[in-house]
């Protein structure tokens, strides 16, 4: 089954063709990051307009890359939530039109389910159940993946996402947007014990829930104190200490969850999985615990449409299709 998949929930407009949930025939991405650097963030109106301009030529290119004609497509999948509403709407409406014109099923896919499914593309042997930590600029979620479409959120952030913590700290340190990569790069020149940063925990209720707002505030306070006292801020040391703190909060909880559920497999997904400290700490923790770690290659960690095509296949198998009344949603539970 060949699925044409569309992703447009934030910075990237992406179109892919995926066969049977596992084989990528085409994976086209148009990134708006360069456009947004000028503004220091995502500007919705520009994002939506830019998605609109590139989505049709991108779909044509994806078909060409895959060596397919339009009639070869068996279904159309799209991200319908969560995301920047104007941006998601572009992908949803394109997918609705395409499914209608081709006379094939329309499959709505939750963006975070797509990130988790990126692992199916990277690792042909991986099957549920496994524990997956989904970490991105907008989400931080620890998920019990019991089946391809049967998932339970074990814990999530109560305030900021892990990637948001990097983005906002980068802004305070004058490193630009997006902040994940510059902080990662800078951290390699610093000591991870340069600053004693908090590891905020959520004391009431769920032990798998997380909080990153206090960490961001600690970075703001350190930068503010340095400015007021005229003391130089050790930026590489702060970046390294921040990466260490975020990594410890994420890795510890994920390994606890894997132990609790007795799953041999641990997966990581989302753009923040590109962080080298987090990758290294997961590798060490999984080796020590005798569990197998799955982290997709960088290209599949960021937003892409191939992951939507992968999850779309399993949603279709489960009967999760939509008609042309499908809407886009800014907020949606997994």
């Amino acid at each position, binding site marked *: 089954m060949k699925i044409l998949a569309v992703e447009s929930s934030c910075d990237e407009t992406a179109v892919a063709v995926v066969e049977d949930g596992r084989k990528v025939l085409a994976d086209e991405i148009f990134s708006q990051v360069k456009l947004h650097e000028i503004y220091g*963030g995502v500007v919705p109106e520009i994002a939506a307009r830019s998605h609109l301009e590139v989505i049709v030529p991108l779909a044509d290119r994806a078909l060409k890359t895959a060596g397919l004609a339009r009639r070869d497509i068996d279904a159309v999948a799209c991200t319908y939530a969560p995301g920047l509403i104007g941006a998601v709407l572009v992908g949803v409406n394109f997918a609705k039109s395409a499914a209608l014109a081709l006379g094939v099923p329309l499959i709505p896919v939750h963006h975070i389910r797509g990130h988790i499914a990126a692992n199916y593309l990277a690792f042909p042997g991986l099957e549920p159940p496994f524990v997956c930590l989904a970490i991105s600029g907008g989400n931080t979620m620890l998920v019990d993946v019991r089946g391809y479409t049967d998932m339970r959120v074990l814990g999530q952030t109560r305030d900021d996402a892990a990637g948001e913590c990097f983005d906002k700290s980068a802004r305070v340190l004058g490193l630009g947007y997006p902040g994940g990569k510059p902080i990662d790069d800078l951290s390699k020149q610093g000591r991870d014990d340069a600053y004693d940063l908090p590891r905020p925990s959520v004391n009431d209720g769920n032990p798998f829930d997380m909080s990153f707002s206090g960490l961001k505030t600690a970075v703001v306070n350190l930068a503010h104190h340095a400015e007021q006292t005229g003391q130089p801020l050790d930026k590489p040391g702060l970046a390294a200490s921040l990466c260490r703190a975020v990594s410890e909060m994420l890795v510890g909880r994920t390994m606890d969850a894997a132990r609790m559920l007795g799953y041999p497999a641990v997966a990581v997904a989302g753009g923040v999985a590109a962080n080298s400290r987090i990758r290294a700490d997961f590798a060490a923790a999984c080796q020590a615990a005798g569990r197998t770690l799955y982290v997709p290659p960088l290209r599949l960690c960021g937003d892409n449409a191939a992951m939507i095509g992968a999850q779309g296949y399993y949603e279709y198998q489960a009967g999760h299709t939509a008609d042309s009344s499908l809407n886009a949603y800014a907020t949606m539970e997994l």
Partner: protein
Amino acid sequence: MTYITHSESETEALGAEFGKALSPGAVAALYGQLGCGKTAFVRGMARGMGLRCLVNSPTFTIVNEYLEEGKIPLFHFDMYRLGGADELYDIGWEDYLARGGVCAVEWSENVPGAFDGDEYAVRFEKTGDNDRQITIEGGPGAC
């Protein structure tokens, strides 16, 4: 009215008191720098309005919608990424105003043209690492 809080949970409790008194259509414009407790205040507003759902930062998606049966909806905006009021209208700001909910707007300083004078202005100032001075002014008919 000016309040002093000494922790995130006190800021949340103040938000809850504020949220209890809100009617459909109320708009709270929040002003203050990174890490001064705006999201915690909005979480309190949600609790005060009887909403039990998860309230986290909407920075990435611009708006979180908190909808629960039998409760006034709360629309939680974060204008951190916006360049000005023009973009606010493009994300459906006016549609949200017409939906009969309460709007809480973080980083209102980025969208000065969005308000009509009937909004509550909630200003956050960091007076210490954990201390915050929070001023609530305005509201329907205040001008």
